[in-house]
């Protein structure tokens, strides 16, 4: 089962990442500055890529503008306003449900 392999390898790799700084560095100042900056940039970059891939594309082609995009804009506004994970998810999901109910 390849999905088990994916999760087990991801678990091992993620643990290695989690222990890396504790094992290698006495504190954050020991990380070379450019490595630190790269680590800081990769989160936003990777998450942006996943948002683009899941929102703007649908099985590899453009997703027609509609409820998905509007719900994402609502979530974007909530995220910028409240910076709260659960609230942003609920707001986006509620907007999406309302749009579906309205037949958008």
């Amino acid at each position: 089962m390849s999905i088990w392999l994916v999760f087990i390898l991801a678990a091992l790799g993620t643990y290695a990442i989690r222990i890396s700084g504790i094992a290698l560095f006495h504190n954050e100042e020991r990380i070379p500055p450019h490595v630190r900056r790269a680590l800081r940039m990769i989160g936003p970059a990777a998450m942006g890529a996943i948002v683009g891939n899941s929102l703007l594309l649908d099985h590899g082609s453009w997703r027609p503008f509609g409820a998905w995009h509007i719900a994402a804009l609502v979530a974007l506004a909530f995220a910028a306003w409240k910076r709260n994970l659960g609230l942003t998810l609920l707001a986006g999901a509620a907007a999406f449900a309302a749009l579906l109910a309205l037949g958008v």
Partner: protein
Amino acid sequence: MTSRAAFLDGARDIAGLVPGVAVFGLSFGALIRARGIDPIAGATSSLIVGAGAGQTAAVEVVVAGGTVAIAVLSALIVNARFALYSAALAPMFGRFSRPWRWGLAYLISDQTVGLYGRGQERWTTPALQQFYILGITAPMRTAWVGGTAAGILLGPVVPGAWQIGVIVPLMFIALAIPGIRGLPELVAAVTGVVAVVALKDLPLGLNIVAAALLGMTAGLLVRTRGTTPAGAGLAQDAPAPAAPRDSADSA
């Protein structure tokens, strides 16, 4: 002052963030069912990987027909930020006993880094700090696993017409926005969005990995001299005390 009090103090500090993680877990569990992933494997992933963004990235690559290697790579790229948290926690964790150090490292999350400084101030000995850190991490992982399991159980109830996949962009918007504290992070994120679409014809879900690396590069190219706030992008819910005074960053 007991270890129990330190644990409860940490649990109180994190309590406000637990519902959000439970909702995220519910969504991930429902997604697992909607994507046709083995439910036991999906629930196990929340326990052993314990990083929702990385798990979702891997699932999306698998669903897109990617190989095991690309799925794992996507998850690890999304989780690479934990290396920073780990380094930030190193001075505190270095004083813990080995079993605690290695055990608590397994529970590190975005929120741990936002709170550990409070525990360090209130609890003076490493033995008590260990329990404080357990107090802020164990409830999060429990809520994450519990939420996932509940989402998996409820998943079949969700009609296909609800298009549960919309949760993926919503989750990542919720996760990414609090980390964008300056122009470099913004450029990295926007480049990631644009690049993943521009590279949409790459096979096997490789466009996510490629776009993440391009976004990182673009963020690094932005001049940040003297403008990047300390600890930018580290914590989601609180200003990170983890990475203060990183003057080297803007050098």
